[in-house]
């Protein structure tokens, strides 16, 4: 996920990458459906990682749903974090009264159906076919650790928790210096949502990059690195 970004910073910073519980190479047996029924369970894990590794002055870089996980962790333990860098954050994907999240509940349900038809389908054994990369063995490791290896039941639950959640009130509680990196156009977290996050987090820094899509760190690492540098 971060392979195009990390080389740029590894000389100056200690880089800690981790898989959220239930995805990648995490211990699937540690997945507790109740604990991970809100993003707080993931935030708890993030705090525990920082404590366990004795990390200080952490600069947290999160993408998409992980942004809100970072926000929740920083609100509970502001002492741990120096900066938050949020790429494509959204506190709430579903439109609410007076708030434009970008999606209706039906859109999200439709997405979960699509996810199901690919993960579960009518055979419990079908998952998206993962072709090997004999010419690029270094990728296979990353692949195994990526979310595409998610257990279908967990993937479904995770998608529900992510897209059905509403963490708007948590934004105003952030005290750690925060940057929002906003892609444009991004249909998942639109500019409108990025600006909302910016308006809610006091003294936050807003950086818009002219990259289409929701995953600039994969599709345009150069622009993403430049945006991160701007805030460090």
């Amino acid at each position, binding site marked *: 996920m971060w392979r195009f970004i990390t080389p740029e910073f590894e000389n100056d910073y200690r880089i800690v990458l981790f898989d959220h519980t239930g995805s990648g190479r995490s211990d699937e047996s540690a997945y507790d459906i109740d604990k991970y029924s809100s993003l707080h369970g993931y935030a708890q894990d993030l705090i525990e990682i920082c404590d366990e590794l004795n990390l200080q002055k952490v600069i947290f870089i999160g993408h998409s749903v992980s942004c809100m996980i970072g926000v929740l962790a920083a609100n509970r333990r502001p002492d741990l974090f120096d900066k938050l860098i949020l790429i494509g954050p959204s506190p709430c994907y579903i439109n609410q009264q007076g708030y434009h999240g970008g999606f209706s509940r039906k859109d999200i*349900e439709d997405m979960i159906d*699509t996810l199901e038809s690919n993960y579960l*389908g009518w055979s419990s054994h079908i998952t998206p076919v993962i072709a090997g990369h004999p010419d690029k063995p270094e990728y296979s490791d990353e692949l195994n650790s990526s979310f595409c290896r998610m257990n279908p039941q967990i993937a479904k639950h995770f998608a529900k928790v992510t897209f059905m959640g509403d963490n708007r009130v948590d934004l105003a509680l952030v005290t750690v210096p925060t940057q929002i990196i906003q892609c444009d156009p991004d*249909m998942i977290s639109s500019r409108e949502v990025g600006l909302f996050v910016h308006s809610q987090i006091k003294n936050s820094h807003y950086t818009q990059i002219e990259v289409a899509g929701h995953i600039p760190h994969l599709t345009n690492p150069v622009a993403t690195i430049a945006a991160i540098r701007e805030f460090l």
Partner: protein
Amino acid sequence: MDDQLLEHAPCGYLQIDRGGEIVRINHTLRRWLGHQPRFFEDLLSMGGKIYWQTHLMPLLNMKEEISEINLTMVGTNDVSIPVLINAKKDKDIYSIFVVNITQRKRYEQELLIERRKAEDIAQRLKQVNNDLEQFANTASHDLQSPLRTISGMIDLIEKKKLIKPGSVESNLFSLIKRNANQMRLMVRDLLTYSKEEDVAPEHVQVLIEEVCREAIDLLKEDVEKTQAVFTISEMPILIGSKSQLVRLFQNLFENSIKYRSDAAPVIVVSHHTANDVDHIHVKDNGIGFEMNQATEIFSFMKRLHSADQIPGTGIGLSSCKRIMKHHGGSISAESVPGKGSVFKLEFPRLNTDPPVSN
């Protein structure tokens, strides 16, 4: 690749850049959808768009190839086509092949519905079976205690000689007594049967000779009363549930004694092995039965004799059949009326795995 070839190919083909903007789109796909939007994701249903952005794009960027992804494409005039896509990333260009799977999808949905139905039914059936077992267990349990009281009263009346022998009351009384006994038998057997779970219990090595001895011991009273004689040849060691196997032989011996002829019962238990199957035969000199009833006798609560003639419940042999099934084996019977019967047990030799019950 030849553009002309792809333009009218019997599948959709398009190329997009890393921002999702459509660079090329073939005629076939344009024809299917009736439009050509700027972005690829605008060809997708809302759920597909989100899935594409949050799952497929990252996947495609990391592994450069994805295949057999099911999405729904939308076109003008409410056109909606279920498709399978394969996509490949080549530098900054992503090539996507699209196959229309409208028929397959319909079939898939039908199968899904049927599968859910089947799962529902299986679930319900399991519940019904559980309830039934629970019911049989509770009912026989609950029936037992008033029955015990009735039997106690009957004993008391007899002991205190409250009924004059030879009177009308005495006739009625013996009818009551016989029926109460029959009912006690029935309740006892029902209870035993309902306790035999439908799953095979833990299987261990069991000495069959010991099993036979224990079964005879349990029937001590009847054996002594009828002067039954047992001849047991060398018996094998089998893998199975000891308690069930004891019950199996107890039922068979009990039958041999119950359906005895005028002579004292002679019961011969023999063993031989053939084709990896252990055969055990229980032969008696009883009254026997007609061969056309050889299958019937193993049916639940099926009896050849009325309870007036020979008391019984018709549960014993069906219980034997169930126990043999738990051991991956089978039971059959051969008989000539008046010449005795042979009950044949077949235990297949198991390699290492215990038998699978169903």
